[in-house]
């Protein structure tokens, strides 16, 4: 019984290690799944600069259906947001309606050397009427001292993003909200 648990943990740890190792190659989201209709804390992991050059800015575009976005400030970096109208009005908890909000976040003016790792964080809510079972993509532009990496490649609808894609956009897979009575996911955004 005990050794079965240990083995499972070991395999799980190994798998997690494998995933972490490969994923550091690209800019990705730490939690790659979120429930429709619930809150979500996005942690964008940046493990590399551009061919050795330090990262100086991260700009991320928020896709449709991700609303009520609040980025986390980072010391030493200038945080700016671009707001715009959403394609439709979304209904949030407690009767709150949103028709516009943050569509782009930019952390700039910083310096993240190639040898170091950092995370860029924002919270958001997945709109209620998003279809589960599909992925949403956050195209990200990583500006460096010399050069730029555009993590903006989105695979055509219906094909899963291959690990071989050159510079894929960070992806978030939407899963259905749990049935009534089951424990809920992260609490929705509170204003």
């Amino acid at each position, binding site marked *: 019984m*005990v*050794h079965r648990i*240990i*083995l499972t*943990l*070991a*395999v799980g*740890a*190994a*798998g997690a*290690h*494998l995933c*972490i*190792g*490969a994923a*550091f*190659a*690209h800019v990705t989201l730490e939690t790659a799944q979120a429930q429709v209709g619930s809150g979500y804390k996005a942690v964008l992991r940046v*493990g*590399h600069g551009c*061919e*050795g050059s330090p990262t100086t800015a991260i*700009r991320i*575009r928020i896709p449709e259906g991700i609303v009520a976005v609040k980025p986390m400030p980072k010391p030493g970096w200038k945080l700016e947001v671009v707001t715009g109208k959403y394609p439709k009005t979304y209904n949030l908890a407690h009767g709150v309606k949103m028709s516009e909000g943050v569509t782009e976040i930019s952390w700039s003016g910083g310096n993240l050397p*190639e040898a170091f*790792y950092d995370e860029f964080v924002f919270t958001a809510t997945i709109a209620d009427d998003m279809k589960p079972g599909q992925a949403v993509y956050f*195209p990200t*532009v990583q500006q460096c001292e010399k050069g730029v990496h*555009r993590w*903006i*490649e989105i695979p055509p609808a219906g094909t899963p993003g291959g690990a071989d894609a050159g510079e894929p956009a960070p992806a978030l897979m939407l899963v259905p909200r749990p049935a009534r009575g089951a424990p809920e996911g992260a609490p929705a955004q509170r204003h």
Partner: protein
Amino acid sequence: MRILAGLIVFALCLAYAPAALAHAALVRAEPADGAVVAQPPASLKLTFNEPVSPLVMRLVGPNGEMMAPTSVTADNTVVTIIPPRLPQGTNVLSWRVVSSDGHPIGGSVLFAVGAPSAGSPDGGLDSEPAVKVAIWAAKLALYVGLFIGIGGAAFRALVAQGRSLPARARVWIAGAMGLGLAGAVLSIPLQGLDAMALPLTQAWHPQAWTTGLGTAFGLTAIIAAAALALGLVALRDSSRSRVKFVALTALAGAGVALAASGHAGTAQPSFVTRPSVFLHAIAVAFWIGSLLPLLVLVRTAPQGDVSLKRFSRTIPFALVALAASGVLLAVVQLDRLDALWTTNYGLVLSGKLALILALLALAAANRYRLVPRFERLGRPAARPMAASIAVECVIAFAIFGVVALWRFTPPPRALAASEPIAFHIHDPKAMINASLAPRRGQGAELSILVMDAELHPLPVKEVTLVLAYPAAGIEPVRRSATDAGGATWRIADLRIPLAGRWDVRLDILVNDFEKVVLEEKVELPHAP
């Protein structure tokens, strides 16, 4: 048991320790991409941003010749390649390495020794003579198979209906088709050898086959082989209706095969020239293919063979089609009349025309003098008739030999202007019209017009060209285009080390967060 489990956990943790390294990237190349060096470099260095392991290193010379490096060593992040003595002109180092996360990356570095290549006068590559002779022989064998073989099978099915041919005729026709099949198959690696300027001894190298199949001629060889196989089936079959159908399909296949590639079928306007080549090929097959069976029939069949009469009635139509399509193609290819004797292409055409006139004269003598005599007198008049047809066969064979020389002479219209190659790639979101114009001694100039789905010019932020030729082992070459205004982007001085079907990819950055990738296989010329 628990100790074992513990050991397994420990081992797994060690084995799968997070390799926090990413795909490597090339930081610096010596000599740099696009550089001109005075002397052939003693060593080539590639520096990456993290340790890599070299997989494949290839060198391509200014004439498309492949060279293997003398030695390749990797020291941490630097890979050093010792090349053989590199020739003057534009050389390509095509590299492929694997980073520690197992992900391979590749690219190509183009640099020039002395001065960038001026390019040979006819834009062709210098293969060794043995390869050229072999290509000519394979083409001749292919013509024999398509015209004498399939033509003979068509004669049996259409003209000699119901009366089966003597066994001797069928053996010869089957032999011709077998020769054609051998020619079709062997021409594939020979094309590959010619494209890469490799010697004949490398004919069995898989790369020769993949490159050959990748050329436009590869398609011709495959269709021709299929048509010849059908022809063999038609020869053996006895059911009249099925034989007709199979033989006609084989005949059409022969026409399609020859129209699929080559200077004649690709000349503009191609909706006129391709059908002309098709018609020309079918007419030739019908005419020349009938000679051998007629020869045998005249010798063995009794007086007044119906096939001969039927042939005499239908051949004028074939001759008219032959002459009309031939004149049209010649007019398109020659831009001036004196090109007939001033250019190599024109000389070959003049030779062909002279031989055809002789053939027509003989055929006319046959038709108006010998055939009526044969019909009147029967067997005694067979010998001069058979002799005449035999001479016609020899002249036809000589015509094939002369026509096969066209493989080595570009037509005047291709010499007159460096004709730009145009291609178009589209996607639901964006499309491009591109035009590639070779410039003597300066590579080629590529002009790209970017449009949206409604064909309006689409202003975009960046356009990057990625060229790769995996069949010949050339890793991607990246070039950034410069904005020339009006949604037009230009790449000047684009060096293309080999002629052939390249994988062309255009990465179009529509805005900061959106990129459209367009990919297509395009036949590109050699542009050193």
